């Protein structure tokens, strides 16, 4: 608890800080599976964002798209002022990425690998040596500088991941499950390092561990089955959770009336998180959150009929935010039971 209080940041980036990362209606399909579904967000310089969600929610997929590993099926991504999949070399210079899997060239030595990365990232040769030394120092790698990467423990590989990401001093850091597979002591050290990095850079990390986001992040996005089911500061989400909300799906049959439908939703009392899920031909589907205890479905149907908008489907979601949190917590407990 003490650690949480100390770590929780109240800082929110100044409103005029430039937007560093932006996703616009990003979807990714693997065959028929929608690993990501219409995800949009933007992040200002200096903010720390956490992707929270159970396993398989799409966090890694989102990270991989942001890192430039593969393009989305739909939607666009900007890093700084550059569109990631148009001006990709320029955009990638601003990104440091630590993948979840931590696979590096096993037959290279730590310092040799970092030197390779520095050359790839065009660190000027005059300062290259000092630059690498600084990252090695910073990430606590001096004792393993000459070891083969294939022989490093998971903890050191995580540090190496951070070091290679920091090379070239990118503005944006992406860390996928940075504490996954570490022991409690290592987790504490890595979290400390991440908090420090978060003070000076725009940072996105993903985790399936609830307390981790509130410890480190300014903003949280909760993923479930490829969709963002809630966004806000950790505090907002916690209080939102106490209020209890449920999700309503609406499908309409005339895409030209989309704006009218959105206007109806926004005018409803207590409703938030209105998103367009899918547009297919004339069909448009929406999702929105409503306070539990209110029954909005009849109201919505009535308003649609009054305005003569074809309504094809309306139903309440089985899965509440609360249940998603429960799933996350259960995941976490299961992870802790593993050795």
């Amino acid at each position, binding site marked *: 608890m003490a650690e949480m209080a100390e770590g929780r940041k109240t800082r929110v980036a100044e409103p005029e800080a430039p937007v560093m990362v932006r996703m616009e209606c990003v979807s990714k399909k693997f065959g028929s599976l929608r690993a990501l579904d219409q995800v949009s967000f933007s992040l200002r310089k200096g903010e720390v964002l956490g992707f929270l969600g159970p396993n398989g929610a799409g966090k890694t997929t989102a990270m991989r798209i942001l890192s*430039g*590993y*593969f393009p989305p099926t739909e939607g666009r991504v900007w890093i700084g002022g550059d569109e990631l999949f148009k001006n990709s070399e320029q955009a990638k210079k601003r990104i440091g990425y630590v993948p979840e899997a931590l696979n590096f060239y096993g037959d290279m030595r730590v310092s040799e690998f970092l030197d390779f990365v520095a050359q790839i990232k065009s660190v000027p040769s005059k300062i290259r040596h000092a630059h690498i030394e600084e990252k090695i120092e910073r990430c606590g790698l001096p004792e393993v500088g000459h070891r083969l990467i294939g022989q490093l423990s998971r903890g050191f590989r995580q540090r190496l991941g951070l070091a290679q990401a920091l090379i070239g001093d990118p503005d944006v850091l992406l860390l996928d499950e940075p504490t996954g597979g570490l022991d409690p002591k290592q987790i504490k050290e890595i979290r400390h390092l991440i908090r420090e990095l978060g003070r000076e850079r725009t940072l996105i990390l993903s985790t399936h561990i609830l307390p981790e986001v509130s410890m480190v992040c300014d903003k949280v996005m909760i993923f479930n089955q490829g969709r963002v089911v809630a966004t806000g500061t950790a505090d907002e989400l916690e209080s939102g959770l106490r209020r209890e909300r449920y999700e309503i799906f609406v499908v309409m049959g005339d895409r030209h009336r989309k704006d009218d439908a959105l206007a109806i939703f926004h005018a409803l009392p207590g409703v938030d998180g209105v998103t367009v899920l899918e547009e297919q031909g004339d069909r448009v589907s929406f999702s929105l959150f409503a306070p539990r205890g209110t029954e909005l479905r009849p109201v919505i149907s009535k308003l649609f009929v009054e305005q003569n908008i074809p309504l094809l489907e309306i139903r309440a979601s089985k899965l509440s935010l609360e249940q998603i949190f429960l799933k996350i917590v259960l995941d976490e407990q299961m992870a802790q039971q593993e050795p």
Partner: protein
Amino acid sequence: MIKSIVLARKDVSSNFYSWLGILIFSVFFLAAGILFALVVVKYVGISMEAARNGYQNVEGLIMTHFIFGSLFADLGLVVLCLVPLVSMRAFSEERKQQTMELLFTYPLSDFDIVVGKFLSLIWFFALLIFPTLGYLYLFQWLGGSFEWGPVLAGYLGLLLLGAAFLSLGLFISSLTANQVISALLTFGLLVLLWSLEGLMGLANDPWARWLQQISPLTHFREFTFGIVDLGHVAYFVFFCLYFLFMSLRVIEARNWKG
């Protein structure tokens, strides 16, 4: 381009840190040594024959053709056998170690990556064949005489042949994470292409001749005679460009897992 060189250097040095790399290097050096030794034996035999028949110095151009022609043809076969083992690592190794994920997120274009991989293969290949020049110096030092021009043409042919084979191997390695499959498939295709040359004897219809023109052996042969024909050079260059382009398409598609 500089980044491609950085990439290539990483791969070449990792080749020399691996047992397989050292093994390929040693096998090629040894095989070439044996072939050279056979050449020397043949050379001695011929000059003795010539001396007995009263000719003074049978050497120079004719000798070079006669002796080194078959040598380079044999070396071509050794290259055919070894190239699949060199190229199988290119992308397959990155896919197996799952290091492509990082590579794709560094500020590199797909073009840089493919060129870097190709460069590393050629680089390693050049390191395989150029040490064998030592044998030639030895031969000369022992009193053998030949013309350097045709021999260097032979080397150029060998390099072009290797580059073409490697580009095909590179393409195959981009398709699979399994190095054994990569090597076997490359070897099979190379043997197939190589044997197309033999069609000339079988039939004389335009199809056979057309297919024969596809075979690298058809275009390699004149180099072994010491002749550099721009048409043949162009064939190898297009061969490489074609498979580099195909590899680029595969890399751009990013259709693999992990």
